[in-house]
């Protein structure tokens, strides 16, 4: 049989059998043996893998001396070069969960070694690492250890062998928040009819698309003196210089563009739309119908506003993910803030 795969284990002072809360301040240490849950875990994978050692660190020490603790731990990982790292399970222990999550995430991101942990779904450590790390869903207390370990072992086996993980509920992990397109054995219309029938008969049903929840931002303070303010114009209407020099996508935009308009009175004939989501004829006749540079320049001339910011920012809104829209907003906002812009007009189609 091939060589066994190597697992490195991380636990806190309690599961590392050093002691309870009074020992939470101990510095990290490494033992070339299987301590606490690592022992049980080793038994579950012993046919094909082995736990090569256990890192133990006090929860308080980790959270208060993150840099030192992390350096020690990552050094051990580099030295021992495991195939995968397992942290926890942390159940609903907050500080332990944060440690398990941050360590696992750092190992994945910095060393490119896979990591698995286990937590109760409400543990604050879940949000720290769920995008990068597979987290087995456990009960809220250590009484769930006997159930948690086989689930984690099973996930570890699949990851090490490069097998694809199934659905979260099948494999027992907390969803990472990735919405993946897959094939169903029934077409969509059939599923809709069945869902409606279930509702009409007061039977249980499950939506395939839980409604999104949008967060809120506090309104920024108003501009005090418009006649001294610099105003920037931004659009998601896909208005670009003719020829689309930056090749901004007509739908599902992956980037934005900015163009110097300081010498222009209007967007006019040099611009057009590449937006794939609306009838382009009217915008192509006159792009200022989508991004009203003409009027802003007029108000600048009349002294109503101090200045129109020299760059005009643009992207395509249609089919563009909220994730990308947020990224664009962050990047554009940063530039505008740094340039000393006082207010922004954003037009959408």
């Amino acid at each position, binding site marked *: 049989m091939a060589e066994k795969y190597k697992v490195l284990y991380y636990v806190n002072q309690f599961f590392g059998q050093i002691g309870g809360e009074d020992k939470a301040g101990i510095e990290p240490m490494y033992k070339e043996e299987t301590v606490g849950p690592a022992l049980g875990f080793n038994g579950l994978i012993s046919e094909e893998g082995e736990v090569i050692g256990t890192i133990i660190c006090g929860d308080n020490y980790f959270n208060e001396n993150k840099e030192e603790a992390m350096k020690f731990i990552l050094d051990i990982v580099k030295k021992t070069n495991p195939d995968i790292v397992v942290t926890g399970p942390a159940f609903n222990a907050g500080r332990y969960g944060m440690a398990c999550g941050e360590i696992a995430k750092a190992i994945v991101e910095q060393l490119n070694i896979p990591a698995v942990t286990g937590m109760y779904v409400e543990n604050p450590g879940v949000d720290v690492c769920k995008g990068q790390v597979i987290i087995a869903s456990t009960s809220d207390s250590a009484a769930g250890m006997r159930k948690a370990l086989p689930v984690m072992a099973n996930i570890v086996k699949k990851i090490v062998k490069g097998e694809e993980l199934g659905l979260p509920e099948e494999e027992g992990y907390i969803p990472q928040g990735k919405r993946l397109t897959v094939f169903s054995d029934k077409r969509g219309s059939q599923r809709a009819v069945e869902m409606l029938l279930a509702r009409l008969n007061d039977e249980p049903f499950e939506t395939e698309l839980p409604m999104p929840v*949008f*967060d*809120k*931002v506090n*309104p*920024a*303070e*108003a*501009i*005090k003196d*418009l006649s001294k*303010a610099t*105003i920037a114009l*931004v659009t*998601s*209407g896909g208005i670009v210089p003719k020829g689309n020099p930056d090749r901004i996508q007509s739908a599902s935009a992956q980037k934005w563009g900015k163009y110097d308009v300081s010498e222009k009175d209007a967007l006019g004939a040099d611009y057009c739309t590449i937006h794939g*989501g*609306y*009838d*382009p*004829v*009217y*915008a192509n*006749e*006159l792009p*200022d*119908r*989508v*991004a*009203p540079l*003409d*009027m*802003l320049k*007029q*108000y600048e001339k009349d002294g*109503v*506003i101090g200045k129109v910011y020299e760059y005009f920012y643009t*992207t395509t809104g249609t089919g563009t993910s909220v994730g990308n*829209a*947020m990224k*664009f*907003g*962050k990047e*554009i*906002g*940063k530039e*505008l*803030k740094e340039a000393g*812009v*006082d*207010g*922004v*007009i*954003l*037009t*959408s*189609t």
Partner: protein
Amino acid sequence: MVKEIERYGLPIVHMATITTISQSVGANRIVPTVAIPHPVGNPSLPHEEEMDLRRKLVKKALDALQTEVSEPTQFE
């Protein structure tokens, strides 16, 4: 995009036709516009009237930027 720009403390006005979406998403200053393919224009109007329409819409947006708000507000 609107929210992320506002997070820098920059007042921003969203000129959009489907203001229901702006509100759901959480824009704070909203100016309703004409139609999706031409938010600040109307090709069916004579040139002068269309210019006037756009001038007024942009003025509304500028006014919105000078107005303190505490929650998502539409400037009709």
